[in-house]
């Protein structure tokens, strides 16, 4: 039981923390962000496993974490509100070549990120060649050319 509580607590805590910190575009993800994620993993390891380094403990813990994740996937599929709460919603950042500054500021995305996505996905050169730019739920910027 304690193992399930540990797993569930850490899972929910990380879910909440990452939701609070908000999504920012994947292009903004730096090498240091990955290092930080590794450190988060190291820090949670001890709390998850405690002093029990047996294989059974690890296997049970993995099963618990995957089980909770499966449950959330199922619940998100069933309840739209929960899905929006946990994953957010997509956000249009450029409308017919016009950057929507207020939205970009809130979403912490700058024009450079959008232009980079436009160059990478469609080879576009200028903002006015973009019909819509959308910050997707997973943090990617999708571009619809004019």
């Amino acid at each position, binding site marked *: 039981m304690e193992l399930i509580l540990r797993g569930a607590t850490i899972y929910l805590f990380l879910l909440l*923390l990452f939701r*609070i910190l908000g999504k920012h575009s994947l292009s903004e993800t730096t090498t240091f962000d990955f290092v930080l994620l590794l450190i988060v993993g190291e820090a949670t390891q001890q709390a998850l496993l405690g002093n029990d380094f047996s294989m059974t403990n690890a296997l049970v813990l993995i099963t618990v974490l995957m089980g909770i994740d499966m449950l959330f996937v199922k619940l998100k599929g069933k309840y739209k509100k929960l899905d929006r709460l946990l994953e957010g*919603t*997509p*956000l*249009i950042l450029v*409308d017919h070549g016009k950057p*929507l500054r207020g939205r970009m500021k809130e979403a912490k995305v700058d024009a450079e990120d959008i232009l980079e996505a436009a160059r990478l996905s469609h080879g576009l050169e200028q903002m006015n060649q973009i019909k819509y730019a959308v910050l997707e739920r997973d943090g990617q910027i999708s571009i619809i050319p004019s």
Partner: protein
Amino acid sequence: MRTDVERIKHSIELEEKLDYQLKGWMIQKVCRAGVGIIVLLTAFGLFGNGLLSRKKIEKNGTSLQYERFLRYEKEVDICWTITGQEEIQFLIPLRYLDHFKIEKVIPEGYETAITNGYLSYTFKMDKPGVASVHFFLNPQKTGNVESEWLLNKQIFQLRHFIYP
């Protein structure tokens, strides 16, 4: 709610829910402020090792230093400084020890006994002077712990909160 966030009409089949986004951003801001406050309080010792956590009690030449906020299975030092006693006897309630495992007591060379719900530690000194006694305890249960230790029949109240 923010008004400088542009509202647009678009032709994409997409569930944008701008009002929901605005609410979400507001909640995120409040929560980020909360995270900042927690970091600050942590620096001040809300989770141990800091101003908020450190406790010092001084009574008749005896000084007790301990941490108010502890963490599960994180060793803690209950430090006593005693002056002018030839024999020092600590009585620790067994109920208090339900929450802790005694890892080490320094100095060594003491007598122990269990009497009336207390575990006693008796130290004998060659001559009265300043003595320092450390109890290294390992928290084994979470939650609030309140107890009274007796040192040569003087009562010292200890209060801890053990985080999971």
